[in-house]
């Protein structure tokens, strides 16, 4: 799918000079990015202003870079706890997904035969089941077993939802992994579980990095599932906490802008740290998905 720059030899020839057309394209792209980023930049600027300043002059610029709003967000609202909840949900779901999905995909591919095909299709069918379809029975079941409004319930619901995509991604990758390596390991006498974690799992690293990045972002950004499964007894996730602040009659605009900016920061950090995997992973994931 993605091709390396070397695949286009003519690229190097044209690298010599910058044409006017290229400069124009760069300018257009830069303007587009600025335009689309405007809401975020606006929120960022207003996170340094007070409520009075924002409502008196909505288009004004901050007079300083005071962090009052950031401090007050943690002191006067549940945002800190919500941030922690979001971290636990994202991290917990990712760890559990990695514990069960790659192993299951390997099992499906190495099981072979008709039953393997059926199990695979059963998992893939989940891609066509919107969350809304299973939402109402899940809430009542979680209530019955006493898990409603716990982080555990959110993690469990996420696990089920992400399993289908994970199986799809891993199975298509494992098809290209030769059996010889694992067979050699088995002859050596390693148990299958050990063979999997010490030999197979490291070979799956490319697909694991794509899977982790895609899931981390979508878990962090999710709003609907925690909205449904966490009631007022929990601080919620950052998105849920923000939506509650928006719902208040006396909503504090400056704190909402601040909370929105803080919600974006981890995604940007993740992106900056794993940029190369990110763009490759997104292309793999989206095409396969």
């Amino acid at each position, binding site marked *: 799918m993605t091709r390396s720059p070397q695949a286009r030899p003519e690229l190097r020839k044209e690298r010599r000079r910058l044409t006017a057309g290229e400069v124009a394209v760069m300018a257009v792209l830069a303007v587009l990015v600025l335009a689309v980023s405007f809401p975020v930049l606006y929120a960022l600027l207003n996170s340094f202003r007070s409520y009075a300043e924002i409502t008196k002059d909505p288009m004004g610029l901050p007079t300083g870079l005071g962090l009052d709003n950031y401090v007050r967000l943690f002191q006067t609202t549940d945002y800190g706890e919500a941030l922690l909840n979001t971290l636990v949900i994202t991290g917990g779901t990712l760890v559990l997904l990695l514990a069960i999905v790659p192993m299951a995909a390997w099992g499906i591919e190495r099981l072979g035969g008709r039953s393997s095909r059926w199990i695979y299709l059963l998992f893939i069918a989940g891609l066509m089941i919107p969350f809304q379809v299973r939402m*109402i029975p899940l809430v009542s079941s979680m209530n019955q077993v006493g898990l409603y409004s716990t982080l555990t319930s959110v993690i469990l619901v996420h696990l089920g939802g992400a399993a289908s995509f994970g199986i799809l991604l891993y199975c298509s990758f494992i098809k290209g992994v030769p059996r010889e390596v694992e067979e050699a390991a088995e002859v050596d006498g390693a148990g299958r579980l050990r063979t999997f974690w010490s030999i197979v799992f490291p070979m799956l690293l490319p697909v694991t990095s794509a899977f982790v990045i895609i899931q981390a972002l979508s878990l962090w950004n999710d709003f609907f599932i925690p909205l449904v499964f966490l009631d007022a007894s929990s601080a919620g996730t950052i998105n849920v906490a923000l939506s509650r602040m928006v719902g208040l009659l006396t909503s504090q605009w400056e704190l909402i802008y601040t909370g929105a900016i803080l919600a*974006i920061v981890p995604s940007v950090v993740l992106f900056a740290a794993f940029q190369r995997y990110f763009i490759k992973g997104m292309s793999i994931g989206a095409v396969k998905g």
Partner: protein
Amino acid sequence: MTASTAERPAALAGGRARPAPDRRPARRMTRHRAVMLLFIAPALLVYTVMVIAPSIQSIQLSLTDWDGINPAYEYVGLANYRDILTSDRFWNATRNTLVLGLGSAVIVNAVALGVALMLDKLHHAQGFFRTIVYLPALVSGFIAATIWKYMLNFNFGAVNTVLRDLGFEGAAMDWLGDNEIVVGVLLFIICFTLGGNTTLIYLANLQSVPQDLVEAARIDGASRGQVFRYVTWPMLAGAVTVNMTLMMIAGWTIFDQVMVLTAGGPGFVSETMAFFIYKVGFGEYRAGYGSAAAIVLFIVVLATTVLANRYMRSREVQA
């Protein structure tokens, strides 16, 4: 692992048959299968309990008058489905879902393709521009909608302030409270992006268009427009179908923006199907009715996926 099944696994192993005069390899294969099933078990269990079972239970609940709280309920047959299909509110939600889902799929794909074509033209700093074009996609729909909600505030919002400052007093509107424009405003906010992943997929596909084809067409005297129409566009067919399908399926469940910006209002004007299910199921204590609406949504998503897949296959055969 009984003797009667001992031969089967060997046959299932396909073309990898080894000379196996005695039954030992066969038994080994059976053990192999048992271990593999154990590997699958945890994920299958979670998936069954969290996805398959509740989905089936939804079908059952859709035939009842359950309120979502009281343990007692009665079966009402297909009454919920009849009520839904004759409800103006449901059809309005369906129309909004189509406008927002299909509309955003078309618009975002067009924008993403345009951006990808521009990126493909760059021979300098392409990596840098690809990165900054992707950056806006890091902001979730929820966060973007939250910021927009305040920017669109009638009195103190950025949009109306700018309009008033520029002297267009009459153009300042109650963007999210006006029946006539609210769905259009939602569509605008959903489409206010450079495509993110969609752009990356188009760019990857553009870069795999063979350059000798393009050059051959140019030598034959084709204009830029003709090259795009007859060389590049057909090569992109697969990517267009994939992107449109992905966005349409996501479009059927648009929820976050509606919840944040309008909560379905004014009245029920801007509800989508996903929001409708959420609202009747939890807000109005009609869990049976909500389940029926969810099953209708499932049927629609299933039909979209199957049709899109069939269409995609037919295009691939031609290509």
